[in-house]
């Protein structure tokens, strides 16, 4: 039973995206709307996992798809389209997170003072949210890609621009840091 858990594949290959990209590059602009709707939730989840705030995540998603819309010709097909898209989403979300660093610090200070954090529209488990907020954007991106998007270690390595072993080590450390913050009594 345990061996079945260990050998379970994380994701399957998906080449439908390549066909859509070819159609778009051939001049069919309506295809991009299909790509956008297909991956909106995944990109939003990544942005939300890194930025935590829903409004900031929604804004970052528009930025991310604008970048994809303008630079889709640069897609070199050495990896899956989804991996290429997630790499853009992770990098842009981390960049946006650095912009809003001051706001996150203000949230931490509010929580340290014993006050309740403002409630988001789409409620996330406050304990999870608090633990994620104490992590770095890079750690949040790793946990989001692995546990929310269920990407394989190879795909995560491609998305963050590292090799598989480094991605695995960084993922384990991020998970351990999350556990420490999560299990701290409120």
């Amino acid at each position, binding site marked *: *039973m345990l061996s079945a*858990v260990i050998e379970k594949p994380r994701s399957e290959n998906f080449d439908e995206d390549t066909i859509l990209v070819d159609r778009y590059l051939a001049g069919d602009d309506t295809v991009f709307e299909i790509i956008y709707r297909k991956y909106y939730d995944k990109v939003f*989840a990544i942005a939300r*996992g890194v930025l935590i705030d829903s409004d900031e995540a929604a804004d970052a998603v*528009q*930025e991310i798809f604008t970048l994809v*819309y303008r630079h889709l010709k640069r897609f070199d097909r050495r990896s899956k389209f989804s991996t290429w898209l997630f790499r853009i989403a992770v990098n842009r979300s981390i960049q946006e997170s650095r912009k809003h660093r001051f706001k996150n610090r203000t949230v931490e200070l509010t929580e340290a003072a014993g006050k309740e954090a403002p409630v988001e529209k789409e409620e*996330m488990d406050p304990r999870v949210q608090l633990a994620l907020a104490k992590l770095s954007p890079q750690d949040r991106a790793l946990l989001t890609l692995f546990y929310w998007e269920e990407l394989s270690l190879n795909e995560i390595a491609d998305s963050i621009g590292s090799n598989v072993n480094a991605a695995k080590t960084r993922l384990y450390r991020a998970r351990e840091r999350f556990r420490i913050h999560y299990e701290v009594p409120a």
Partner: protein
Amino acid sequence: MRQRVPSDVERLMWLVAESNDPNAIADFEGRFPEFSLELSRRCRMMSDLKGARANSASDHRIPVFTPRSTQMGPPRKTVWVASGLALAALAMASYSVTKWATAPPPVLPKVEQVITEPVQLRDTNVYVPPKQPVETPPLQNPTSVPPNIQQPTSPQEQPKTLRLSNTSLRAALQMIGEMAGYHVEIAPGFKDQQISIDYNGETTSNMLKDLGAQYGFTPFDQGDGTIIIVPAVDGGPPLDDSNGSGRRLGG
């Protein structure tokens, strides 16, 4: 007190917690009952973490995509450098315009002083009259002074014209001396008399010599602008020697 988990059990426990498979959980708890509490904690944590993704995305509507006009901005450092350069250029331009607008008109060279050498006149035949005019004493009788007389250097050497009639000798001597700027003093014993004289173009010294020879006295120039008239003549009686030989004027 939390029990320390061996690394191999730790790895297996994470796999079971991530799978959330009831059979795998039961199998693990049967093999490692001492870590069943720790496993339940991690299962709950994994459930909450994964459930956070579902909560965050389930209620979100997909907005219409409209490509934004703003692209990814340049790095913040580049923005600061560009802003600094722009401000520096603006400051330089402002300074240049202000300096150009408020600059005074070009200053022409100003001549402070002109020094010229006096013009040296060459020898010419131009006559330069003497600065001191000839003083003419008031005359009892009208006299005529001929013009165009060459003026000697000293007043007593200047030729004069003098005509007196029926005048005392003492007054005539005073007048002759004053014409040349002398003060005439007459020594005691001088014998005055009525005379008439007519000199034309004669100097003062010649007039006095001539009168002394005629009336027996000797003029002595003291050197301080004073002429003393002594009623005597050297080498002879003062009045009888009318030739005037051996008489002298001045000192």
